[in-house]
């Protein structure tokens, strides 16, 4: 029982104190799971991280599933996933209820009038950083540009873009370049 509680509390901490999404959470998860609790070792963590990043879905949730299941099976997984989700869920519910009350407030509208254009910049920056992490390699940048245009200007659904990109890459890499 104590182990489940520990798993829950560790991921509750990770869920409650990390801002800015999955990639920012990774060092904190590593500190908690590898260094402090010693649930898995450094190599296992690296392997798990690769899997969590290549599987679909929020990276923090993928990591929680892996660690929880590895330490304590299905129940451990439930403890870690709940720990990751509960802080977000609770905070957002309070904010949603609060904002529903002030929906038509002139003050709130003026504040958000300033925030909305900043949000555009705050999403553009991770996009540029993702390209930068790939050293602006020509094929990566080209696929990203085509995908962005398909969704933005041609109004193609993002899910279709992901599926088409995956299929094209399988065809290209296995039959044409034979890279894999």
């Amino acid at each position, binding site marked *: 029982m104590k182990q489940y509680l520990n798993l829950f509390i560790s991921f509750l901490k990770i869920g409650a104190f990390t801002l800015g999404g999955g990639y920012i959470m990774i060092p904190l998860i590593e500190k908690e799971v590898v260094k402090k609790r010693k649930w898995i070792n450094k190599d296992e963590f690296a392997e798990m991280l690769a899997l969590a990043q290549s599987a679909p879905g929020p990276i923090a949730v993928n990591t929680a599933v892996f660690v929880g299941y590895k330490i304590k099976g299905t129940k451990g997984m439930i403890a870690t996933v709940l720990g990751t989700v509960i802080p977000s869920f609770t905070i957002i519910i309070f904010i949603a209820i609060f904002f529903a009350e002030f929906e038509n407030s002139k003050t709130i509208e003026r504040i958000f009038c300033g925030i909305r254009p900043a949000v555009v*910049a705050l999403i553009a920056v991770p996009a540029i950083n993702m390209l930068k992490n790939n050293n602006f390699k020509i094929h990566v940048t080209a696929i990203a540009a085509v995908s962005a245009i398909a969704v933005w200007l041609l109004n193609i659904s993002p899910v279709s873009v992901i599926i088409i990109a995956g299929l094209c890459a399988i065809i290209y890499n296995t039959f044409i370049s034979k890279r894999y």
Partner: protein
Amino acid sequence: MVFVQLFITFFKIGLFGFGGGYAMLSMIQHEVVEVHQWLGIKEFTDIVAISQSTPGPIAINCATYIGYTAAGGSISGSIIATFAVCLPSVIIMLAVCKFFLAFGKNKYFSAALAGMMPAATGLVAAAALMLMNSHNFVDYKSIIICAAAFVLSYFFKTGIIKIIIFSGILGYVLF
């Protein structure tokens, strides 16, 4: 009915959400604003701002908030959307742990990933581009705020919360 739609929509977003939360934003916007019209674009942008400046994975924050709003202010809507967006992760990661720990090294999967990851980067860019519209950009002051936020975040690595608070104050003073 809205509960079933919320479940299907967020399950789909979780299932195809390669590349993490930011790449999922354009999927959420497409489904929630364009297909189902649960929210207007301004409301969606506000929710993204709130999701970015509160702790936890951005996709979870969005799902919880949108579930609440789409279901007309119901916590059940939040629970369903949040559960649905996590469920594919849980199923896929459990399957990986149990059966194919080597699936990351599977040649077809690696080949597909080589195309899906750059596409996911494109989706992040698309999310930003789609929010660049006349609803969110009222006049030249909006452009200045956007440029200032970009410079602070990209060059000075200023934290998200600071930028949101700063732009909120500017909005209050300027508009």
